[in-house]
């Protein structure tokens, strides 16, 4: 029997600099914890998130990818998150169409004032990914050994 390692999901969170990253800071300064499996990448705006980045994360072994941005209408750059929303809607729908678990990708709008929401969202998402288990459908085994 091989030793079975406890599954620790890898989760990449793309956070826009103005709202969600600040929301993460607020979660931090309010000591609202969320699993260490969540690692944040700062981008200027959710509209900077290229579908390529999301696929790349899955390739490299991520089990879940979440993108967080300002609430629609509150984008620091006026309209960035509206474009991001369309892009992600289409991308997620396509991933679903290809049979890749829909729940592995998520978009949330988290303002700079919503530290609690940030923490809650990340806890929820991490739990969802933990329940789904390892990402098998978009993995690149070369990156796993």
């Amino acid at each position, binding site marked *: 029997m091989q030793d079975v390692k406890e599954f620790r999901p890898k989760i990449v969170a793309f956070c826009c600099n103005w709202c969600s990253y600040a929301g993460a800071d607020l979660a931090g300064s309010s000591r609202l914890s969320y699993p260490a499996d969540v690692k944040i990448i700062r981008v200027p705006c959710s509209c900077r998130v290229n*579908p*390529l980045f999301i*696929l*790349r994360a*899955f*390739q490299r072994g991520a089990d879940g990818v979440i993108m967080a941005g300002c609430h*629609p*209408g509150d984008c620091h750059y006026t*309209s960035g998150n*509206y*474009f991001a*929303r*369309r*892009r*992600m*809607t*289409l*991308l*997620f*729908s*396509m*991933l*679903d*169409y*290809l*049979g*890749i*678990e*829909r729940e592995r*990708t*998520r*978009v949330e709008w988290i303002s700079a004032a919503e530290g609690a929401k940030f923490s809650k969202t990340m806890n929820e998402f991490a739990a969802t990914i933990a329940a789904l288990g390892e990402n098998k*459908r*978009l*993995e*690149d*085994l*070369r990156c796993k050994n």
Partner: protein
Amino acid sequence: MQELMKKRAIELLADGTCDRVLGWEKGDFAYDQTPALFHTAEELRASFVYNGFSAANLSKYLVKECRAGGKIAVFLKPCDTYSFNQLLAEHRIKREMIYVIGVACDGKADVEKLKDAGIDGITDIREEGECYVVSTIYGDKTVKKAEALAERCLNCKSRKHMAYDELIGESGEVVPNSGRFDMVEQLEAMTPDERYEFWRGELSRCIRCNACRNVCPACTCEQCIFDNPKSGVAQKAAVNSFEENMFHIIRAFHVAGRCTDCGECSRVCPEHIPLHLLNRKFIKDVNSFYGEYQAGEDPAARPPLGRYEKNDIEPGEAGGNRA
């Protein structure tokens, strides 16, 4: 039809409207036509062809031809005119350099269908009314045109020319219920596991020959990111299932909102992967999420990913088995 086109092309060369004509050139077996430039009446007389096997969408060649100087005449089928408009919208071609002759199309034949039906050793194919008479080294065979109709033409979305300077034959109408999303809907109705199996089965055959990309009139990048070593995502042959998925997802996304559904990708795939089902998924999603939109219908229309509504649906609401 072919003779009318040939005659008109010769006239256009003669009257100086254009200095070359883009059309289809005869091959060895009637079905293997090659897109070609005709510079003289002699060339046209000798090898210009237009029939049920003139399948290639010629619009993409205009990107290159517009840079060559001199006005070019081109024959475009209805579906090709959508690609033409899209290229115009994206400033890839210059309208004033091109003389468009819209040609009627009642669907193109797919020689693979004949071969799948057991007809081999084909030496020539003639059209006789509603039938193709196929000469083979094993004798003549007659096939109903409808039975040889290419997959993409079964769900023809439009027989209407979106752009032309003149028409040969008649322009039809947009087909309201083309059924082109039927297969997409069937896939959507499957479970995620079934869909995954379906696409693995299809995409695992991909040999990354890039025929789909290189024929695609929406893929006119100066250099594809997959060919650009500086992009960080360049690949050649797909090493594993991830890379197969990656290439096709990104390519489909890249043409999302720009794909005119001309069907060339699936036509040229040597492995017969139904790539159009990826593009049609995006077209269907755009239609249902953001309102009806067909790339290439109106070159002035704003593409769906270049605009937004404040109350667009959330990504979380997309996907899943929607009723």
